[in-house]
């Protein structure tokens, strides 16, 4: 990889650079790849009939999920304190399962605490089966297709507009909890809004659609699918753009900046001050006056 990179990650507004041809080629490859990605699971699904998938999902569900969510996904209230052990899954849809299990949040280590992102327990095939089973319990949001959250099919100008609009929607609806850079934030009583940088766009889309844990839902009647797509495009554009100004310091805003001012700035200056005023080496010899 070249260290110095001209016009990295940006879509030129005015110019056609020599690399435009290369970009078209790349775009073609990307499109082919994404088309393949979009169609290949469908082919796999054909191989295994839907019923068989649901049955497989039910088997996994009974072993791994029913303790909290009930044998038929109806949810269980704890016998001890009457609190919900696991909510009903009827009508949450495949998208919720794909998000919760696919990001490792489910199965939960301990009921009651906020589900954390961790390496998924189930393989993608198993997640698919689980999702199919839960979707069969009641109508709910389906797993989005890549075309739902990708702006690859738009023209360059449309893409730019989508990113700008997405930024405004993001700042209006999302930054309050997830912070201006998607670094996450604190919620009442130990809850937190997780970091959403570096998260697969599919999961962001599913999270908006289903409102995992304490998050509000942004159903299609609330934020249209295009608006969700634009938010994801904006987040993607933030990840693609160079960090113009240097290290982001965690993207936490003024608190981390203050910390760096004290530790790095004052620390370094004081270290220099100590050196300036320190006594230099002394010699045991005395000077021979010429």
């Amino acid at each position: 990889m070249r260290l110095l990179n001209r016009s990295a990650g940006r879509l030129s507004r005015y110019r056609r650079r020599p690399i435009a041809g290369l970009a078209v080629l790349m775009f073609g490859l990307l499109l082919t790849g994404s088309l393949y990605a979009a169609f290949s699971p469908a082919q796999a699904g054909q191989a295994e009939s839907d019923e068989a998938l649901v049955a497989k999902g039910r088997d996994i569900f009974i072993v791994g999920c029913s303790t909290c969510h009930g044998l038929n996904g109806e949810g269980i209230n704890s016998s001890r304190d009457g609190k919900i052990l696991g909510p009903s899954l009827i009508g949450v849809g495949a998208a919720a399962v794909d998000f919760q299990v696919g990001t490792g949040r489910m199965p939960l280590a301990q009921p009651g605490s906020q589900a954390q992102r961790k390496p998924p327990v189930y393989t993608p095939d198993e997640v698919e089966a689980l999702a199919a089973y839960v979707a069969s319990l009641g109508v709910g949001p389906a797993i989005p297709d890549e075309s739902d959250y990708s702006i690859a099919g738009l023209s360059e100008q449309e893409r730019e507009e989508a990113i700008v609009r997405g930024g405004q929607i993001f700042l209006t609806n999302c930054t309050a909890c997830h912070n201006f850079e998607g670094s996450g934030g604190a919620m009442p009583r130990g809850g937190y809004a997780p970091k959403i940088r570096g998260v697969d766009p599919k999961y962001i889309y599913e999270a908006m659609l289903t409102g995992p844990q304490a998050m509000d839902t942004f159903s299609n009647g609330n934020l249209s699918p295009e608006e969700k797509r634009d938010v994801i495009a904006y987040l993607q554009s933030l990840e693609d753009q160079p960090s113009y100004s240097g290290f982001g310091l965690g993207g936490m805003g003024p608190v981390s900046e203050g910390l760096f001012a004290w530790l790095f700035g004052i620390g370094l200056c004081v270290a220099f001050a100590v050196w300036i005023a320190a006594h230099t080496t002394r010699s045991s010899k005395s000077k021979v006056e010429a």
Partner: protein
Amino acid sequence: MSTTQEHLPAVPEGDEPIPNPGLPAHQWRPTDVDTRAEKRAERQVAALFGVATLALVGFFVSYFVFQVGDNWDTIAGFGASNVMLGGTLAIAFICIGVGLIHWARKLMTDHEIVELRHPASSSEKDRTETVGMVMQGIDDSGIARRPLVRNSLLGALGLVGLAPILMLRDLGPLPGDKLYHTIWKPGMRVVRDVVYTPIKVSDLEIGDLVNCEPEALANGGPDGEPLEGVELQIAKSKGAVILLRMEPDDITPWKGRENWSVQGIVAFSKICTHVGCPISLNERTTHHLLCPCHQSTFDLADNGKVIFGPAARPLPQLPIEVDDEGYLVAQSDFTEPVGPSFWERG
């Protein structure tokens, strides 16, 4: 040089347990007594200045080589212009600084010298003389003997002090009743922020939170055009609301607020009653709304009551209903001033 001058006499102070031994004799540095060390230090200083020169050349080159604007160059993912301009500047300045200090520490004559202090105060003689002259000046002016002159002057000067305060009057208009009203009117549609589209009850599922604005932002201008500039900002800063749809049974309305919600959809002011930050950090499961600025927490199922934090008043609720076309509209303006408390609010 003579060392006796450097050894100041110690000051005996009554029962001082140990007398001041005086300045220790000067000790030479390796650079004072060893020509090789001296030459080495000289080369080091010169090398530092040399590096600084090179870095500054790098600075000039970076200025012209790295593009900003529409095509930012990058280095390892960072903005190349910023990193290179700042980096070369930092190297140049630190090298010049370190070079100067190294020079002072190793090569400049480093005998400590002694300077005597003088009291900060003037001598008694100067004080007496000055006071005398001031008294004579006052006496010559006759200000003490002529109270009419003195008092009329004081009166005039007092008014001079008032003039600039008066001049500040036109900094802004008087508040009037502006803080008591917002742009909401009966029948005004609640529209989504950013895109300004109206909302139907059927659009929202339970758990949906919508950041909304009054429709007047989109068509409140004289000829139905969108608001702009100051008017837009002021309207937004008081009119922004959040819609939340929850299980209708969860809502416990206060008396008189029973019909303020529509099928579990409630509308609350988005402006915190503490110091006015917009709040939309909602926990879907508890209907608790948190302010990111100072963590006031409001219960939206319970009339926006404060359940935690520094805010003292509940979040104002906007009464809503459904219009003929099925869109959500305001029943009226807010029934109380939104935003932070102020003196006259009562």
